[in-house]
Structure formats: structure tokens, C-alpha cells
């Protein structure tokens, strides 16, 4: 299996030392849907040693258009179990743990505590705020990814901040957002954004290049344009600021 990671070994920013770091790392992927599938595929292929998958849903036929881990035979099965089976076939060296449950204030601190990096591949703000708050509490990196139609965004929040509440505090703006079930999305969009999240995870692990820590990238795949905003801790933030 020495040849398996040859293209990493010859990459100056990774090398054998970097690959060891990747194999010793533990990454939790919260949500194994449109974003979580490409994130998991990329990280397993790259040789991440331990991956936790969190999802409470079952595979539906309408998922197959963009949730690229699943096959027609998986419809009706729990996502984490189907995903783990496919991932183990791709890399038997990777330990895959399934959490067929919702994350909640009761379980997330213990769960997140077992991993180095938390990937947010969820589909609603309530869960995203819970992930953000817990990552600040535990000082874990929060690899944020989100999509809508032809658009997406990626950032690394968490550790010491800024956090999601810095950008928008739900206590100050309680207007409803559109639910994930009601929005359209081009099938390839979560693949792009999920792969960007995976890339940021791997860069973070090996310390390569300019990380998206404290920066959000906005991707418009309809016009194929990118924008980025440097974030900072909001002094009004009730979580990581002084608010």
C-alpha cells in the first residue's frame, strides 16, 4: 500500500510527514447528504485515519441526483450505514464510525470531543448554530459549507472565533429561512463545495497554503465567479465576542 499515497508523498506541501498527519487525524462529518458525500469520499481517498459520520436520515430516491455515495440499492437504508459500507470498500485502512442520530445539545460535546476537525455538511441553521457553539466551546475548527441552487460558500470558523453567530445572531433576526426541502440545487454544486471543504480539511491537517480560517469564500457557479470576505470576531457576538 506504499504506492497508494504516492501523489501525496511527492507533493512538497504534504510528503510522507503530511500523510502521517492525515492518517493520524480524526474528522467528524455532520450530515451525509449532498455535501457530506463528497467530503467523505475525498477524505477517505486521501487516507484520513478516522472518520465519524452523523446523520439520522434514510436514503431517498430524490437524493440520488446529488448524493454521490449512494446507489439505487441504498434507497430506504440509513444513510450512515450505506455511506460507511461504500467508504470501507474504497479504503479499508480508514476507520469509519456511524452515528445514526441527530446531534443535540445533550450529545454534541462528548461526540465532538473525540475528533480533531468538525465538518458542517448539514442543511439547516439550527444545527449549524449548535455546531458553531460547540466548536467554540471545545476550540475545534468548524469547516463550514453550504449550498443553494447554483451557489455555495465555504469557511473555517470555530476554535477561538469568529463563529457563525458573529455573522448573524438568530436572537436579533428571527425571520424564517427557506427550508432545504424547498430549494432546488444543481446536482454538481454540492460536489464542488464539498470538495472545497475536503481540501480545506486536508490543508488544515498538513498546514499547507493559505487556510480559509476566518475567511468565507462565496462561489457563484452560475456565472463561475468567486468572492471572499475576511471575517473577524464580532464584538456583539454572544458566543465568542463580548456581546
Amino acid at each position, binding site marked *: 500500500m506504499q504506492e497508494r499515497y504516492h501523489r501525496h508523498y511527492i507533493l512538497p506541501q504534504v510528503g510522507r510527514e503530511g500523510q502521517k498527519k492525515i492518517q493520524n487525524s480524526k474528522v467528524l462529518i455532520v*450530515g451525509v*447528504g*449532498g*455535501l*457530506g458525500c463528497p467530503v467523505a469520499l475525498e477524505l477517505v481517498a486521501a487516507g484520513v485515519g478516522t472518520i465519524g459520520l452523523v446523520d439520522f436520515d434514510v436514503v431517498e430516491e430524490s437524493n440520488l441526483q446529488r448524493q454521490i455515495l449512494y446507489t439505487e440499492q441504498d434507497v430506504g437504508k440509513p444513510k450512515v450505514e450505506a455511506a460507511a459500507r461504500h467508504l470501507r470498500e474504497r479504503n479499508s485502512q480508514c476507520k469509519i464510525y456511524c452515528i445514526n442520530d441527530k446531534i443535540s445539545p445533550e450529545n454534541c460535546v462528548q461526540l465532538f470531543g473525540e475528533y480533531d476537525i468538525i465538518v*458542517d*455538511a*448539514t*442543511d*439547516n*441553521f439550527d444545527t*449549524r448554530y449548535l455546531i458553531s457553539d460547540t466548536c467554540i466551546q471545545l476550540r475545534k475548527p468548524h469547516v463550514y*459549507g*453550504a*449550498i*443553494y441552487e447554483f*451557489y*455555495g*460558500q465555504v469557511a473555517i470558523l470555530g476554535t477561538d472565533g469568529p463563529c457563525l453567530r*458573529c*455573522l*448573524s*445572531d438568530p436572537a*436579533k*433576526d*428571527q*425571520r*424564517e*429561512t*427557506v427550508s*432545504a426541502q424547498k*430549494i432546488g*440545487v444543481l446536482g454538481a454544486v*454540492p460536489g464542488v463545495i464539498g470538495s472545497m471543504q475536503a481540501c480545506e480539511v486536508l490543508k488544515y491537517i498538513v498546514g499547507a497554503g493559505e487556510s480559509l480560517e476566518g475567511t*468565507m469564500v*462565496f462561489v457563484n457557479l452560475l456565472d463561475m*465567479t468567486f*468572492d471572499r*470576505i*475576511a*471575517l*473577524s470576531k*464580532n464584538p*456583539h457576538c454572544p458566543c465568542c465576542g463580548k456581546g
Partner: protein
Amino acid sequence: MMLNDRPYPDWHEGLTIQGVIEHMNFTWPKLVTKVNGQLVWPEDYPNVVLAENDDLKIHHLLAGG
């Protein structure tokens, strides 16, 4: 003034970020905004007055996955 890489035709003296949001009918919550590359916190939208040559970007914060 530019808004999301396009000329904004309704600039006037005293125009604020909040004024642009209301005029352009950004009705969804959770916006991420920068002026000339600098992030502006939501709390400051009513207070930041835009100059005629400012470059304003307004993005929606997304949650879909």
C-alpha cells in the same frame, strides 16, 4: 457606487447599507456584507454611509447541504 459588481444607479448622499438592502428588497435574513473589501457587521448596516465610489458586496448566508 458598485453593488455586487454592477453599477448601483440609485446612490445618493447619506445612503446607508440598510438603505440599499431595503431599496433592493433583500428580504431574506442573514446577509454577509463588505464595503471596499471590509466586512461590515449587521449591527452597523444603518450607520455605514456609502460614498459614491464605494464597492458594496452583499451575499446571503446559506444553510443548504
